[in-house]
């Protein structure tokens, strides 16, 4: 009965005209940046954070969330029509989606991507609704040791699931932790590594960091590659998949939903990993794996369903535990803090309107996305014809203004430039920026939890192994690290390069 009451509350919030407007803006902007290669949801959300200062917290979070899951829809369009993934989570969609377009079946590929995303996203929202409440109730009994251990698990799993070298990811995670320690010490108010710069007293800002690492760096890399676009035309009447397509894709959609939902919850999982795993699973289970890459609809349906399911389920650890599982959620974490809301299990009790309003807005947003992506596909295709050398100055201008306007600080712009250079070099040298950014967000929580735990135990580290949840988490950390070290020893050259 309480669940129905919560859902009714959420719907009453999500269906308010102003929140419907913010939801529409979010999914529209999300689709737009998904379609346009060169700027992702992380950069866009960071860019729009200052704009949300003037909005209600509910409207702001509804809009920012819409950008994230909207980008998953839009990302498939460029993968299928241009063979350039609009988002990292749509990279595998290029393999079969683009081939389908070359075979004259761009319409069904786009349609299946949108419908699969809708189905996967909707099921994941149901899972989010059902799982968040018990998880948040369990989290209320967590103390600092449990939070410290969970953070350790998050950091290790993050590097474990990284796309590139685990060793390099782990190093970037530790570097992110180091950056998070810049600023006044929370317990003693002693300035740490501020070098006399007043603006650094509050630490390195999250927005300059992510805008530099993910916005500016991405543009610098894109400027080095020629982005020739050959767009395959499709008639709008051919958008809907045929009955044969549905029969071929039904299990790919079902599996994609499950894979996306569970990988979305894991730290470091999210939309990108789930799309890759889904594609690999479909190929392995197929009776004709050799046909993958030549334009099979399962190769589009599975990954596109999975990435959207993951985008929705990654809200679970953020909203129920207060732990962002990926960089996008870290930006949302920052957004909630800016609005005076501490993400975690208490949100559900203290701000049920926000929690349930955001969750229910995702249903509304998914329906909007279906309408935006099927009948309006022609509009997005026309947008693809805008040359990149017209787009990038605009994106850079918005990055610079977005960073500056947070604190009206030129130091933040300089920091963005610095992290832009760092991010560019990291991409060139095979280091992933995601572990750095996520560890940066988790760092202060990790340090607070550690110091509070030690204060509770009188300085005994045994507190982390005598409490069941903490002990289990630490055991998991040990197992994961052992696996990592073992695989590192077996293939040392691969890991270090």
């Amino acid at each position, binding site marked *: 009965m309480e669940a129905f009451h919560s859902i009714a509350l959420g719907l009453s919030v999500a269906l308010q005209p102003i929140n419907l407007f913010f939801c529409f803006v979010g999914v529209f902007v999300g689709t737009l940046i998904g379609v346009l290669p060169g700027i992702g949801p992380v950069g866009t959300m960071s860019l729009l954070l*200052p704009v949300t200062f003037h909005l209600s917290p509910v409207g702001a979070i509804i809009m920012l969330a819409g950008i994230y899951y909207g980008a998953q829809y839009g990302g498939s369009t460029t993968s299928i029509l241009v063979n350039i993934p609009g988002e990292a989570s749509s990279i595998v969609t290029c393999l079969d989606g683009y081939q389908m377009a070359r075979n004259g079946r761009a319409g069904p590929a786009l349609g299946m991507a949108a419908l699969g995303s809708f189905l996967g996203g909707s099921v994941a929202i149901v899972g989010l609704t059902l799982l968040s409440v018990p998880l948040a109730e369990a989290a209320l009994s967590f103390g600092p040791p449990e939070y410290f251990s969970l953070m350790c698990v998050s950091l290790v799993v993050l590097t474990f699931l990284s796309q590139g070298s685990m060793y390099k990811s782990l190093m970037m995670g530790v570097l992110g932790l180091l950056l998070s320690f810049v600023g006044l010490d929370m317990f003693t108010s002693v300035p740490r590594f501020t070098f006399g710069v007043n603006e650094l007293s509050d630490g390195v800002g999250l927005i300059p960091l992510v805008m530099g690492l993910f916005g500016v760096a991405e543009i610098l890399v894109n400027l080095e590659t020629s982005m020739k676009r050959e767009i395959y035309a499709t008639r709008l009447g051919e958008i809907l998949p045929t009955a044969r397509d549905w029969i071929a894709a039904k299990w790919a959609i079902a599996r994609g939903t499950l894979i996306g939902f569970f990988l979305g919850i894991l730290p470091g999982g999210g939309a990108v990993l789930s799309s890759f795993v889904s594609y690999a699973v479909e190929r392995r289970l197929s009776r004709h794996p050799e046909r993958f890459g030549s334009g099979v609809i399962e190769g589009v349906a599975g990954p596109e369903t999975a990435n959207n399911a993951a985008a929705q389920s990654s809200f679970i650890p953020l909203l129920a535990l207060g732990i962002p599982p990926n960089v996008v959620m870290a930006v949302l974490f920052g957004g909630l803090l800016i609005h005076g809301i501490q993400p975690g299990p208490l949100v559900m009790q203290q701000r049920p309107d926000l929690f349930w309003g955001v969750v229910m807005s995702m249903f509304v947003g998914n329906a909007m996305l279906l309408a935006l992506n099927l009948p309006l596909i022609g509009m997005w295709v026309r947008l693809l014809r805008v040359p990149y050398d*017209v787009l990038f100055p605009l994106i*850079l201008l918005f990055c610079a*203004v977005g960073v500056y306007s947070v604190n*009206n600080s*030129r130091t933040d712009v*300089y920091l963005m430039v610095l992290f832009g250079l760092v991010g560019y070099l990291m991409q060139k040298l095979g280091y992933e920026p995601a572990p750095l950014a996520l560890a940066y967000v988790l760092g202060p929580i990790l340090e607070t939890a550690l110091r509070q735990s030690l204060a509770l135990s009188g300085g005994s580290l045994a507190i982390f192994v005598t409490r069941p949840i903490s002990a289990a988490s630490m055991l998991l950390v040990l197992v994961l690290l052992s696996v990592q070290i073992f695989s590192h020893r077996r293939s040392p050259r691969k890991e270090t390069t």
Partner: protein
Amino acid sequence: MSERAANVATSAVLVTLAAGTCVGSWRLGLGDVHTPGPGFMPFAAAALLGAMALVQLVRQAASPGAGDPPSRPREARRRGTVVIVLATLLGFGAAIGSLGFTISSFGMLLVLFGVVARKPWWVTLAAALSIAVVARLVFRALGVELPGGPLGL
């Protein structure tokens, strides 16, 4: 620069950074396990980073290199583009407080369209001017406060 040389250089930078952070953390005060000081966590993290980077440095230095690939004019031009974009952003950051949003963004767009994107001068001028003005109006409508500079723009 070869991949091996790049990895060696990166590892060396990380080792130096970690060593510097360890020294800085020590000066801040490590405290003890009962009451960790402000330098405790940075020291632990820097020590871990330093150790990992050192292992990578030794491995890379010991591995046989493939030799440096010859430098190409196109790569030099690409690096030039990166430097110009970053310098333009720095210039924007330095100018916005004193010149205001519209003038500094106009200047930034002039460089990006004209020098980096290599658009004709009249396209550059028209695009930079119109985007700077429209962006000003949009940000004002969104309630984002930006400096106006001496001309109030």
